[in-house]
């Protein structure tokens, strides 16, 4: 099973890379030529050469040869040069990716844990007063991440001053491994983190609730009750099985969470990939947009693969199938 999934992710990565190569060529109006025309004179000829190379346009070649030039450049880590920032895309990404990875990674873990736990509880106590939470959860699920973030920024940041806002750390501290910097990073990360968790929580919760209700009807749960197991153990029995589809659906969810969370960065001026992407879009900085897209896609695929490994570890049935 794992090998099959790995093949899928490799194919997906290849599709993303190829789309990245083909898109600028298929689009009407020849955006690359326009781009090179626009920047000639503002950047050095060397940089233009690097940009042409990263698009696979280094020499006067046919499409296939261009494609291989492009792939070779990618393998060497050459994503091109950002037009507006004048620096190689790869080095810009190296500065921004850790912020995003930390923020979105932590937020996803939190919201998955809280949402699954809450969903198991909701499913178990179905039909009770707790069901009133469902419409609320549905509402939170439907709110765009960036809108919820904006409202929280206004309420808790600029009105109530509970959290510091805008940026990833205070301007008064010096970055490095010192206590004041790290605590500042944590303080500034709190509100964006809460915003992402609140927006993504409901999805996990509702999915888990439905699975839990389906599981409770299964014979093995009845059996557990009949054996006279304490209630907590029975819930654990059902929840452990209900969680599997949740994890199996991670591939859909991670993409959505990441897409939403990128915009939260933008609202909070968080110096991550999302904020960078907006700048790139506004300035029509194509090499940067493409580089960011590739990095996001590869990160999402890696997260999916991790989820698959966890799934395999949790569900013995998949292991037997893999052994056969």
């Amino acid at each position, binding site marked *: 099973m794992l090998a099959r999934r790995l093949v899928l992710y490799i194919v997906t990565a290849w599709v993303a890379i190829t789309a990245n190569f083909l898109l600028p060529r298929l689009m009407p109006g020849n955006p690359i030529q326009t781009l090179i025309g626009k920047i000639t004179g503002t950047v050095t000829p060397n940089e233009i050469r690097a940009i042409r190379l990263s698009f696979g346009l280094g020499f006067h070649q046919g499409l296939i040869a261009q494609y291989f030039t492009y792939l070779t450049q990618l393998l060497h880590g050459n994503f091109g040069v950002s037009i507006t920032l004048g620096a190689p895309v790869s080095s810009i990404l190296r500065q921004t990716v850790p912020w995003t990875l930390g923020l979105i990674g932590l937020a996803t873990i939190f919201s998955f844990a809280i949402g699954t736990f809450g969903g198991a509880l909701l499913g178990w106590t179905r039909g009770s007063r707790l069901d009133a939470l469902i419409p609320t959860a549905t509402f939170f699920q439907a709110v765009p991440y960036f809108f919820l973030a904006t*409202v929280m920024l206004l309420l808790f940041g600029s009105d109530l001053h509970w959290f510091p806002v805008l940026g990833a750390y205070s301007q008064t501290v010096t970055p490095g491994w010192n206590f004041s910097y790290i605590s500042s990073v944590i303080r500034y990360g709190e509100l964006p983190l809460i915003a992402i968790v609140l927006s993504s929580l409901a999805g996990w919760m509702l999915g888990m609730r439905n699975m839990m209700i389906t599981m409770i009807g299964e014979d093995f749960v009845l059996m557990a009750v009949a054996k006279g197991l304490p209630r907590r153990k029975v819930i654990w029995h059902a929840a452990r099985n209900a969680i599997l589809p949740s994890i199996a659906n991670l591939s859909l969810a991670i993409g959505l969470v990441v897409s939403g969370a990128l915009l939260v960065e933008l609202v909070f001026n968080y110096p991550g990939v999302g904020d960078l992407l907006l700048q790139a879009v506004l300035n029509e900085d194509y090499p940067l947009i493409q580089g960011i897209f590739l990095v996001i896609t590869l990160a999402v695929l890696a997260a999916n693969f991790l989820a698959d490994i966890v799934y395999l570890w949790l569900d013995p049935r998949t292991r037997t199938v893999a052994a056969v």
Partner: protein
Amino acid sequence: MKSLRLPRSPKVIIGLVIVGFFIIMTVIGPWLAPYNPSSTAFAPLLSPSAHHWLGTTSLGQDIFSQLLVGARATMVVALLAGLAATILSMTVGIAAGYLGGASDEGLTLLSNVFLAIPGVPLLIVIDSYLPVNSRSNFFVIGLIISLTGWAWGARVLRAQTMSLRNRDFVEAARIIGEKRGRIMFTEVAPNLLPVLASSFLFTVLYAIGAYVTLAYIGLTSTAVWNWGTMLYWAQANNAPLSGEWYWFVPPGICIALVGTGLALVNFGIDEFINPRLRAGGLTSRQRRKLGLPRRIRLGLTPVIISTSKRSAVAARAKLVSQ
């Protein structure tokens, strides 16, 4: 075929009312708008008043008019995207599930690839390469959004088709010698209606989010008013930080309400497909009416067969109590 009536739970009714309200707003909103949404004739940044129900923007445009006019673009693009994505996912999903073998392998791989690529970043890349005049075209935007949103539905439909493939009525159609395409679309597809409806609503929900996101980062034409463009201008003028809530809260609430409505209707469809959820979703009063125990006991989640039978069960329960 079973009756397709949705369970009449309060959730579904509220959902239908909300969705209906916004559909009416889509149709008549632009006519109801008191002013031209782009006209800058008024004083900037007025607070809500009798003349301007939601105040004005920093350019002196009437926000209430923008909200009413913006409903149309938002909903039309979302519905177009939902429709296109449903057709795509139906074709791929049913074909994969029914044909099996190598076609299934290929089509499943295709939908899994689209499922794994993060949709919104891909949308941003495609959209940033679009010429400016296509960015205001509803069809172009709707189609691109559907391209990133069809895969989930295809997967669900494939699974459902596989469970239908060997039923007697499909077998019978095969024996009669019906063509494969005809079996897929006239025998199998109608039985997938609840799943299709659910996947359509889900895609519309996704499309609203995607369209608003594109507009919010300034990737759709600013000449077309939609709720995302409103949020874009509010953000660009720092409305959230200067406390002009009336500028960005109304479009956000509208987006969230449409989404909630769609999700609530989807709940109803889910309960229709999965009888166990149906019992779980009953309110205590309905449960009393059906003669079910007030607290559902463990391992005994009742399976409620269909809504039409419900009245019969209720009548029987009444008889017993008398």
